[in-house]
């Protein structure tokens, strides 16, 4: 079949995009580990593919998570994505009905109305024309909203949007032009040949009176083709490359591939799957401290452009709030840590001076963690709790012990952290313990994720206390106090422990629910993950979090992390206590003023 010249821009753009996708995807798959490559191949004919198709449909086209964020924003995204998808699918069906054959050249469907001008007796032509016009109207409404969003993003629930690159602007402009041009082209053709429906025919009849349609129709079809071709050709260089990559990412994720501790094809796929929608920007607390270029979206952009610098990479609390709202579901924290590992690879410590201390036999080990040693009231309370529950324990780091390794991990020093982990691990295993109790969520996360401690129950003290209460080893006494609970990042979003501390606190006082809690909880600003932030910037973040927590005027702000406690206590605004202190306080019925004093003392 002869291809008219006006289709060429579109065809060239499509071909270019196809070749780039093929090259990039092949390269990414080949850089995966052998097992992961097997996963990619083996899972193709299983339920994984169906699951991926469903997820690609729900997230990639309908944009379910964006709807949850803001219905208006969701409609804008899904009218464009899902609408365009329907235009393609229904367009092909229409062309197939017109040809009375399934074998339709795909470009024929794209420019269908240009060709279907004489034959009017094909099946369902009116239904198809109506459908296509309707879908086009929906897509046009999405484009209108996208224009409007540039003027007023707050209408879409967004305070900030991503700063774009020139390549994005070209792609964006061509994307915005595609559908209005399609509308014009189809209307003009309808004006001449009466092959439109309610939208294009009406418009065509109007245009007929004012424009010399024979002269303008062909140029508009050419412009439509050019805008399509330009968009497709710019796609690999712009943020819109997330469209093909995201589908690929969903499949890789569902076939069980996990992010490694070094950059491989999967990390690249995740990096390219970022659509730079900017939803992570508003969730980032660094904004309040005036830090506006280190958010996940910019880090991923810098990785793509190979312009990532240390001040951007290391200026992040790794609180995980961005990960929580990311509509694509990217592992934003781990992607950043992968880069930190890469950047600090050259100077990992070996800790060869460390000697294993003699290990006592123990059933329960208590590891307070470095941070708890700066908040001695937590250690004191834990000692009281162990004592009154009548549980013998070995206080592993009472006098000296190596760090758990998590702060090193957060800074990217993975090899160094592994040395400390190996040593602590050996010591714990040698003791023959069955339970390890931790007071610090920072330790807890690394013990859970990176230590290999088979048959040992690793428990944060909030979990452990709940167990003791359930077993009746400690008896809670309810006090008439209003409590709010602050979810520490590493315990909440980091280790998914939300319920246990709340269950404990409900037995000790009135726990007031808040707007921003659980997954949405704010970071205290003290996070060790940020190497670059200044003390005063930390204070701004802390104060903003305290504003939120203090809104219900609680008697006590309860947290489960020594670092959160220390950070909040520094503001001297609320009575900050650890959950262990609440429990221990009621155990020996310490009068309340003393509890307050203790909190302020630290």
């Amino acid at each position, binding site marked *: 079949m002869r291809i008219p010249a006006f289709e060429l821009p579109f065809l060239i753009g499509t071909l270019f995009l196809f070749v780039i996708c093929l090259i990039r995807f092949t390269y990414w798959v080949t850089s995966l580990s052998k097992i992961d490559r097997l996963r990619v191949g083996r899972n193709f004919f299983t339920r994984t593919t169906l699951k991926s198709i469903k997820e690609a449909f729900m997230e990639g086209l309908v944009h379910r998570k964006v709807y949850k964020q803001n219905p208006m924003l969701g409609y804008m995204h899904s009218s464009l994505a899902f609408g365009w998808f329907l235009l393609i699918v229904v367009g092909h069906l229409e062309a197939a009905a017109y040809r009375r054959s399934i074998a339709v050249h795909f470009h024929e469907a794209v420019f269908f109305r240009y060709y279907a001008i004489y034959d009017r007796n094909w099946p369902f032509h009116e239904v198809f024309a109506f459908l296509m016009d309707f879908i086009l109207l929906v897509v046009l409404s999405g484009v209108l909203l996208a224009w409007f969003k540039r003027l007023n993003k707050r209408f879409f629930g967004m305070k900030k949007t991503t700063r774009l690159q020139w390549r994005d602007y070209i792609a964006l402009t061509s994307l915005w032009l595609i559908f209005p041009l399609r509308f014009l082209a189809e209307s003009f053709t309808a004006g001449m040949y009466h092959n439109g429906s309610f939208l294009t025919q009406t418009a065509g009849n109007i245009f007929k009176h004012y424009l010399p349609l024979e002269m303008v129709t062909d140029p508009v079809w050419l412009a439509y083709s050019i805008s399509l071709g330009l968009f497709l050709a710019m796609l690999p260089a712009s943020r819109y490359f997330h469209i093909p990559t995201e589908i690929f990412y969903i499949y890789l994720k569902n076939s069980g591939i996990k992010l490694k501790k070094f950059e491989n094809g999967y990390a690249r796929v995740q990096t390219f799957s970022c659509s730079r929608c900017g939803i992570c920007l508003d969730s980032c607390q660094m904004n309040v401290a005036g830090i506006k270029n280190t958010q996940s979206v910019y880090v991923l952009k810098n990785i793509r452009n190979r312009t990532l610098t240390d001040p951007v990479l*290391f200026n992040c609390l790794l609180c995980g709030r961005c990960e929580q709202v990311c509509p694509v579901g990217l592992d934003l924290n781990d992607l950043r840590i992968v880069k930190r590992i890469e950047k*600090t690879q*050259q*100077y990992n*410590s*070996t*800790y060869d*001076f*460390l000697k294993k201390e003699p290990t006592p036999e123990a059933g329960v080990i208590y590891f307070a963690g*470095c*941070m708890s*040693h*700066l908040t001695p009231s937590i250690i004191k309370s834990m000692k009281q709790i162990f004592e009154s529950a009548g549980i013998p324990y070995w206080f592993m780091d009472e*006098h*000296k*012990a*190596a*760090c758990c390794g998590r*702060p*090193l991990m957060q*800074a990217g*020093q993975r090899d*160094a952290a592994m040395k*400390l982990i190996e040593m602590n691990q050996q010591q714990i295993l040698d003791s023959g313990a069955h339970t390890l109790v931790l007071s610090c969520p920072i330790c807890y996360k690394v013990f859970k994720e990176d230590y290999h401690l088979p048959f040992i129950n690793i428990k944060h003290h909030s979990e452990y206390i709940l167990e003791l209460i359930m077993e009746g080893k400690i008896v809670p006494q309810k006090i008439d106090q209003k409590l709010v609970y602050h979810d520490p990042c590493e315990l909440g979003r980091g280790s998914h422990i939300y319920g246990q501390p709340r269950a404990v606190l409900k037995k000790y006082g009135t726990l007031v629910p808040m707007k921003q809690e659980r997954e949405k909880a704010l970071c205290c600003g*003290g996070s*060790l993950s940020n*190497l*670059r*932030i*200044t*003390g*005063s910037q930390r204070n701004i973040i802390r104060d903003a979090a305290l504003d939120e927590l203090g809104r219900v005027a609680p008697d006590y702000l309860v947290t489960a992390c020594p*670092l959160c406690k*220390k950070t909040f206590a520094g503001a001297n605004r609320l009575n900050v206590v650890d959950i262990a202190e609440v429990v221990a306080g009621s155990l020996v019925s310490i009068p309340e003023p003393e509890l307050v004093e203790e909190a302020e003392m630290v």
Partner: protein
Amino acid sequence: MKNFGFSAIESRTIDYSQFDDRLLSYLLKEEPSFILCLSCGGCTATCSAANLVDFNIRRLSLLIRRGEIENLSREIDKCMLCGKCTLVCPRNINLRHVVMLIKKGIVELNEEPQIMEL
């Protein structure tokens, strides 16, 4: 040098006009708060690593200010980056960052084609 009539042993003299300040200026550029240190030693007192091994972060800070950075690499490797020093610092110096910068700075200075040995 002005002669005050005292004798100075060569090996115990620090000539501030000649000492190797590359690492110090690198640190101050990247982490300006480092200049605020008043050598109180709070960092050293709380240090987790110092519990296990002979390690003195305050001394390192002093050595860097004197340009005595020969054995720094071996010393700084003892830090476990737990962050207690940063939390107790009365001048809010971002010591954890300083430690990472020292490590990085040593690598970068070593890569520089210079006569200095670190």
